[in-house]
């Protein structure tokens, strides 16, 4: 048994036949070859599989592909700009050595992308809380915190210049 779903993935409309039980994470990784979204636990704790569905962060290992029928889905592959340039957030990660093995990184990037949309000027505690649902075994988190601060600061600067 399969069902047809139609999804806007990273801005591109895609129609697929999927089994109702197919996990969203497996759909993205195995069917669409968008392997940037990683799986670390498949039970909703590590956050490595975090993506945006209609602009909100979700764990793709806890959703089924059929649930995103008609939705907008954004994965880590959407972050780099058209010319392949890193986005300010990605650049901030590189600048602050906020990744080592890089396996948890896509999940962090998507969590933070969603978070900064809602809270563009967070304080340290808010940032920590926001990323506390993502596990990283390599970095010890503080460089990730620094990276988030760098982007939110530069965003603020941009706004000041604009005004």
């Amino acid at each position, binding site marked *: 048994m399969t069902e047809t779903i139609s999804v806007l993935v990273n801005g591109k409309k895609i129609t697929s036949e999927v089994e109702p039980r197919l996990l969203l994470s497996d759909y993205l990784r195995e069917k669409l070859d968008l392997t*940037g979204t990683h799986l670390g636990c498949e039970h909703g704790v590590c956050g490595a599989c975090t993506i945006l569905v209609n602009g909100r962060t979700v764990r793709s290992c806890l959703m089924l592909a059929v649930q995103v029928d008609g939705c907008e889905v954004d994965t880590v592959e959407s972050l780099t700009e058209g010319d392949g340039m890193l986005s300010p957030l*990605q650049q901030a990660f*590189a600048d602050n050595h906020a990744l*080592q093995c890089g396996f948890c*990184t896509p999940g962090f990037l998507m969590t933070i992308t969603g978070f900064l949309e809602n809270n563009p000027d967070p304080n340290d505690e808010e940032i920590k809380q926001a990323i506390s649902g993502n596990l990283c075994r390599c970095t*010890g988190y*503080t460089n990730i*915190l620094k990276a988030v601060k760098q982007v939110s600061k530069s965003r603020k600067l941009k706004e000041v210049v604009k005004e």
Partner: protein
Amino acid sequence: MTFTGKNIKRKEDYRLLSGNSQFVADMQEPGMAEALFVRSEHAHAKLNKIDISKAENMGGVYSVIIAEHFNGEVDQLPPHSEFTLPQNLIDEINPIIQPCPEDILAKDRVIYVGQPIAIIVADNRYIAEDAAELIEIEYESLPSITDPYKAMEQDVDIIHEQMSSNIQAQFDLSTGNYDQALKDSDNVLKERIKTPRVAANPIETRGILSTYDSRNGKLQVWSSTQVTFMVRKYISKLLGLVEHNVRVVAPDVGGGFGSKCAVYPEEIIIPYLSMKLDRPVRWIEDRMEHLLSTRQSRDQTHDVKVSYNNDGTITGIQDYFVLDNGAYNPLVLTCSYNTAAHLRGVYDIPNFVIGGNCVVTNKAPTIAYRGAGRPEAVFVMDRIIHLVATSLELDPVEVMMKNMIKPEQLPYDSGLIYRDGEKVIYDSGDYPDGLKQALELANYDKFRKEQKKVKSDGSYVGIGISSYVEGTGIGPHEGAIVRLDSSGHVMAFVGSAPHGQSHETTLSQICADEFGLDPEKVTVKAGDTDLIPYGVGTFASRGAVTAGNAVHVASKKLQEKLLAIAGEILEISPSDLEMNDGKVFPRAMQNKYVTLEDLALAAKPGPKCKVPEGMEPGVEATHYFVPPTVTYSSGYHVAIVEVDEETGFVDILKYYVVHDAGKVLNPKIVDGQIQGGVAQGIGAALYEELVYDDNGQLLTGTYMDYLIPTAMEIPDVEMDHQEFLSTRNPMGVKGVGEGGTISPPAAITNAVCDALNPLDIKLNDLPISPSKLRQRIKVAKTS
């Protein structure tokens, strides 16, 4: 301009940030099938019957196999890994080692929960999981042994039939005269100190993909491993293949921390299946499997007896300890001997007796985890320091200083032999000065003054210190091939493959320095057994020392050859030439030059070859760096904590580290290793434990029960450095990968005890969970 020592941005980052990285699970091959392991639900049971017929007949299933299907075709995993002992060490410590080889799949008996019994190969994992439901296994439950002390008793069942007892490995060693020290000392202290079983838990689980090309007999295996060459060796050996026909590649690897530093049964059987079924087969471990069956670590219990004088001088230590191996122990004495060799750390304690028992029980097998026996040793030693200080009503710093090895004693001979057969001689450092630096960083004296006031106001704040010395950069070797390609680009190939340690960046810095090139113009490749004939791997804080120096020397060799070729072309003595920015020119006449590209061309064999007589054509140099023995890093950790008396929750207010890693190649990367290491150490101190019940069932099989620290729990580590160059390699580097993880359990535990003082609370076991601590506070208050 030199690049080593500078914060060069990481070369690895772009692909990892953009989603273009390639981990094993990201790879698919045409026609690929997926494998699933059916694992034991019992810790100890006979397998009376396994019925796979229904599963076999399910649509989408290619094959279901159990042990009898490959009898005679696939050998058992050998009883011990590469890490065997040199003869002089054997003579010294008289080890007893009983071999316990490991079956790839359980045959007629299972001995731990999670042991693989059957494999299903199907179109995808969903189908394989359906099929797994259809396999019927008839277990006959047997009594399981989960307590290593019970396992050592006389009349108990022996888990491995071929062994004469459950003590799989044992050794004893001593230096000085402990008994005499005991007689001559003012005091003696007896304690049991324990570090629990934990798991490394890289966020990427294990994974293997294997393809077989029957036309040329070539087996290609991608594995999330730290030791590609070891995996290749065992695949070729156990499957009976020509080693050259086996290629093992570790693509991007999402952390390992020791858990991927072994050859696993899955790494043998997946390649076997891809050959047997003549199609690509992939297996990706899930987190539950990881917690159940990936090798675990640290499970040690120490019974220590310490003699000391009233002035705080520790005169002797006697320690008998037990390491609970679980079902198998492929690393044999690696972790236990590391514990013994490192226990006294920075301290000059002349009389020392230590004996270790490695015991088999019905739990998952164990391996080395970041620090490999050293966090255990340091926890014991630093608890001793704290307990001695408490009993004498001295400040722990006083006891530390009193017993510490003085700078003028270096190089310091500790009287033991290292695992590689060489004497344990600390090469360089200044330990008291390192401690002083750490105390200044933490503002120790000021804290002590303020602590009194804060405590009298009813808050429980405390400070704890830990120190370590770590043998890093163990051999036997690691190599590098440095080559100029025909476009003048420099390539460096190494055998030790990274899983987060930034080899591509740091090794290119080393290489770039020799050629006067920007590191951008150097490409480093690792993690592929086809790149270089011999390799060992990335573990035990050895990458920078072994691979780093191999790249350094190979680059130098190639640079000399390039100058010689340029000398032929420019008709000038090579000693008058200089190399910079991709060009070689006479020192006196910088506008007359040849480029690296010219040199690559001139080195080709043939009539136009300009390679000086006596040298081989080509522009390539190889060097295998063979360290004389390990080099000793050291460090000091200071933790300031606050304990909530009501909840038993420990809040880390501040954390400080001073460390010596010899020459620093890239400060940001070194600091990153320390910060990340400390986070893992904090996990071990406060949160992490694999809990088994008496039947050998794992109770912490998900991330809801096995707690890994998050951003909320990890403070920003303030750091300072010492830079005592190692005398044992040309670059003067020491390893830094594990140092961060070694000390936090001891520093934090000491800080918690200090915070609760004068309550008599003994924390000689980990983790310090809120419920445990609350309970102990209650008991201490009522007694």
